[in-house]
């Protein structure tokens, strides 16, 4: 043996150096690392005195009642379920890739120097680090698409009740701000008169709005977009806009902001449903009118992918959380 080692002294030397290097590397890389602990094969989270706290026990304590929709465990489980469904149901196309990249860049720029705040917000949404920003937006846009596709597929059925009950329409207005209604200034009165004259002369409403309106919508021809009976406008304005006929400019409507001329530009159901510019507003109205709809869409998407639950408690808790327990 010794003879062999002597014969291969160079190999032995190289081996010894390698082993020493590996030993040092092991020491160096583990220096400052948090060590783990196992007792009877179970991970220990923390110890104090002679007592060990196990990961298994911490999980049970944090999870709460497995069969309850309101337990912390069910809520966390649902967030993973939702992500898994959306992730599998929707794939990322080039357009979405661009949207995600733009959103990530924009948020990073907005939060430059405030990364701690951003991290807190990401953690509140169930993510663990700033590196998850892309994953967050990927999920966000996938979710938008899943919900949007489902709404689009059944738009007629979903929008009709809103159309019948809430008088949806597209409106524009011209605002002349009045600082004191009891003492209207010459300038304010001149503007009111000029608007009246322009409209009486048959000038285009949008052009008059661009020229005279004191509202931020002036540059867009006074266009306020979609509104319905649930829209959060001041009551005098909302009542007048909902009562107005399409294409007929109202009389001056007084609100706390000043005097408004209102023009309803669209009330036709098909036209509203086909107008891309108000699609998000229509979807928001649908979501507001159907609070459980999104959960149901996620559930149905999950069903198409195939969902298996570990046990009845978990299944019932998730269904209850989604508000769909009675539909099975």
């Amino acid at each position, binding site marked *: 043996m010794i003879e062999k080692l002597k014969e291969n002294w160079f190999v032995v030397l190289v081996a010894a150096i390698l082993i020493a290097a*590996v030993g040092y590397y092991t020491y160096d890389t583990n220096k400052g690392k948090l060590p783990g602990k196992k007792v009877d094969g179970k991970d220990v989270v923390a110890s104090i005195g002679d007592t060990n706290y196990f990961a298994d026990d911490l999980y049970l304590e*944090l999870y709460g009642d497995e069969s309850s929709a309101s337990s*912390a465990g069910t809520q966390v489980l649902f967030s993973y379920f939702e992500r898994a469904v959306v992730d599998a149901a929707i794939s990322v196309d080039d357009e979405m890739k661009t949207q995600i990249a733009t959103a990530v860049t924009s948020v990073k720029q907005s939060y430059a120097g405030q990364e701690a705040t951003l991290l807190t917000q990401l953690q509140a949404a169930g993510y663990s680090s700033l590196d998850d920003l892309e994953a967050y937006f990927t999920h966000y846009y996938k979710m938008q698409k899943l919900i949007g596709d489902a709404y689009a597929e059944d738009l007629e059925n979903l929008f009709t009740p809103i159309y019948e009950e809430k008088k949806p329409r597209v409106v524009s207005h011209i605002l002349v701000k009045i600082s004191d209604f009891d003492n209207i200034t010459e300038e304010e009165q001149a503007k009111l008169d000029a608007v009246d004259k322009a409209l009486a002369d048959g000038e285009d409403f949008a052009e008059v709005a661009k020229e005279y309106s004191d509202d931020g919508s002036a540059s867009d021809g006074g266009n306020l977009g979609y509104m319905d009976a649930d829209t959060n406008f001041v009551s005098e304005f909302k009542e007048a806009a909902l009562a107005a006929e399409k294409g007929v400019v109202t009389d001056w409507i007084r609100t706390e902001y000043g005097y408004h001329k209102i023009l309803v530009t669209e009330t036709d159901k098909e036209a509203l449903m086909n107008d891309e510019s108000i699609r998000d507003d229509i979807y928001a109205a649908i979501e507001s009118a159907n609070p459980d709809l999104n959960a149901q869409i996620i559930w149905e998407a999950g069903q198409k992918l195939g969902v298996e639950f570990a046990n009845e408690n978990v299944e019932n808790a998730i269904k209850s959380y989604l508000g769909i327990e009675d539909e099975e």
Partner: protein
Amino acid sequence: MKKLLTVCAFALLVTLSGCKDATTSLSDGNDALITVGNTKITKNDVYTGLKSENGVTAVISKLTAYIVDQEVPVTDEMMSEAQETMQSFKDTVGESNWATFLANMGYDDEQQYLEERALLSVRAAQLTSKYINENYDQIKETYQIRKVRIFQTTDSAIAAEVQEKVQNGELTIQDAVNQYDAVTTTYDGSEQILTNASGLGSSIWENIMAVTEDNTVLTPYQYSSDLSNFYVIEVVSVDVPLEEAQSTIEGLSTISDDAFAYYLKKYNFTVYDIDLYNGIKSQKASYIVQDK
């Protein structure tokens, strides 16, 4: 030679696998709670989510329970206080909602709530007092506890006048505060216990700390760094007994954390999960008492 290479490769593998901070997982953590298509949502996934949301609070609660069990035996008085607290809370929640409240909070019954919440809270409150009682000498040194009388004014001429009269024995600081009450601020001239966390300027505090004998009037009068306030100060006692300092110490914002950290160290608290380690460190850095 092949054997040698195998040994080296194995050693490298061991090295690389051991060079990460530890995280914990469940014994049955790979079991799926839900499977969606090909994606498994495992118990470990949910454990990680739960741990990041409430893990730190749960662990600190466990540690509190352990420490009070060692340090604060239950007395009849504490039990009564806990029962009163619980009853008061029960009245707020309402008798009809009480059972639901207990269930939602994860308690099996009222008794469990009493022992694990109300009584624990009463016992935990005693920990700080116990710490102060047992470690007063060290606390006295850390917080530099002194008994003083202070006359404070924004007028340097008055401060000079009072300083002279106090030094000559014509006035006590208390008398000076009464006599010049129209121009004095903040301090009422009575004996009071101060610490280095009391908010006096650091140079003033250094001068107070330089005093070694009781009933010493600082000379000359003191002033704030921006020269907006002037003080005539008498150090009444450089060695304040615990019974006089107790309430001041209990009012220190950091003392309960000091106490808890002390007991964590005493009982060798060690955390073995990097997520919890970082969570505790960011919320209560002094609670990390181990060498990483």
